[in-house]
């Protein structure tokens, strides 16, 4: 009977200012969707880091005919230099494994990599690509130690960290994530204010009822609960909607568009989406309940 009474009060309240309720739900949904996308990007970055950091290598390019760096002095790397470098690299404690890639191997790999662009391959001669040591580090963050030790050695052209290349890409994603979260923060402020306003309007439109409730000795909880649940329900709907939009976005954008086209990396899976959705729903409920509660403290004198 109590539950039935409160539920019918909520129903009446939500229907009474349906337009404002819809506006609230939509605003909450949009802001939480942005939060969700921000979190999804964060997960994507960490997924990619896990995938790539495992594979990235430091490449020590050796001097070739076309090398311009001063350590080469315009000469090709000598057999002795190459031998010395290989020994020293293997002796460096930060280094896990060292592979040597000859010019011929580099060319083979190049042809394989760009087999869809035969024009490009046709323009590259077999010995144009530099030979290199591909160095796998025990800890990818220790690049600088290795780089500084070998950069100025005779016979070394350049030392390139593939992680650096990735980090440029990650930085773009991080900026995207930050922008999404900043916009989400503004949106969240807007939705909190809107929830607060909705509850204020609801309290005002039912002031006759609440006045009588106060008078006949209804407890604060009884008076406030319908409003609180109204706010919580709006938050729940908004959060659920946001969860749906994030899932839809993942499916449409990542699974349908990106995954078939971009083969070089992996993408966030459904486990990440399933982790984000409850977070959005809980945030929606907590945020709008809190906003309702604070509003009621100010506008529903008991």
């Amino acid at each position: 009977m109590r539950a039935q009474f409160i539920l019918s009060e909520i129903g009446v309240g939500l229907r009474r200012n349906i337009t404002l309720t819809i506006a609230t739900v939509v605003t909450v949904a949009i802001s939480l969707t942005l939060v969700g996308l921000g979190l999804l990007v964060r997960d994507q970055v960490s997924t990619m880091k896990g995938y790539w950091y495992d594979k990235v290598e430091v490449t020590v390019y050796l001097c070739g005919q076309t090398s311009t760096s001063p350590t080469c002095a315009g000469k090709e790397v000598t057999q002795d230099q190459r031998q010395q470098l290989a020994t020293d690299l293997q002796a460096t404690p930060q280094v896990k494994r060292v592979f040597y890639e000859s010019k011929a191997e580099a060319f083979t790999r190049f042809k394989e990599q760009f087999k869809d662009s035969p024009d490009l391959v046709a323009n590259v001669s077999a010995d144009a690509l530099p030979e290199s040591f591909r160095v796998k580090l025990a800890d990818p963050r220790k690049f600088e130690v290795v780089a500084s030790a070998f950069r100025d050695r005779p016979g070394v052209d350049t030392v390139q960290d593939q992680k650096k290349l990735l980090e440029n890409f990650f930085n773009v994603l991080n900026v995207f994530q930050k922008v999404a979260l900043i916009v989400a923060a503004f949106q969240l402020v807007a939705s909190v204010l809107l929830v607060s306003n909705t509850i204020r309007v609801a309290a005002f439109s039912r002031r006759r009822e609440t006045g009588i409730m106060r008078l006949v000795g209804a407890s604060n909880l009884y008076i406030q609960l319908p409003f609180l649940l109204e706010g919580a329900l709006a938050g729940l709907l908004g959060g659920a909607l946001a969860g749906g939009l994030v899932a839809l976005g993942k499916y449409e954008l990542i699974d349908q568009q990106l995954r078939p086209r971009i083969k070089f990396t992996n993408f966030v899976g459904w486990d990440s989406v399933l982790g984000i959705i409850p977070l959005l729903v809980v945030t929606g409920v907590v945020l709008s309940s809190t906003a309702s509660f604070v509003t009621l403290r100010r506008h529903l004198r008991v």
Partner: protein
Amino acid sequence: MVRASYPGVADLDSGSVIRLENVSKSFPTSTRPALDDVDVNIEKGEFVFLVGSSGSGKSTFLRLLLKEEVPTQGRVHVAGKDLARLSNWKVPALRRSIGCVFQDFRLLPNKTVFQNVAFALEVIGKPRHTIDQVVPEVLDLVGLDGKSQRMPDELSGGEQQRVAVARAFVNRPMILIADEPTGNLDPSTSVGIMKLLDRINRTGTTVVMATHDAAIVDSMRRRVVELSQGKVVRDQVRGVYGYGA
């Protein structure tokens, strides 16, 4: 100042339902206090008229009883409770022991007569079967049997006030507070409401009624407490509205 005398009031705390001790109430917006050193004791089962011109402090007096206001000075005891010591979460319990009727009825226009009365019980968590039992009883008591499915706007002013009385009384409160209950009604309808309040008083309920209606006060011959500029200027056991009336 004429004071009603009650032998040994100080010893008879158990019989006192409402007691104001040297109560003053000032509002920050006004220089003159709304109530000024008011000392009133009301016994269980009494019927008290609170008279005085507008702004004399009648409404403040009634609001203090409900703890809608707290006194600036002095103590207010209602139903054996010192309201100053009553914590906020116990105020609803206090209000359940006090029924209220107003000049403007304050019915919910979108609910039937039955639903209006039942609302007072629903919101304090009474079970359905209790509500279905006591609401018809109280509607019968106020003379509205057969009109329980009407909407308020289908009723006359007198009938609407009867619904309000039924709602105030349905929980069988110890005290019934009526703030100008006949203020919107014509004289003959008012007589009917007064008969109803008198009947409720006879069940042992203490009734405190603020009014401007001299004819009613004079005809009832009950205790009269007159306020003027926040002070009690008269307290008579079987009073009339004003001197020489």
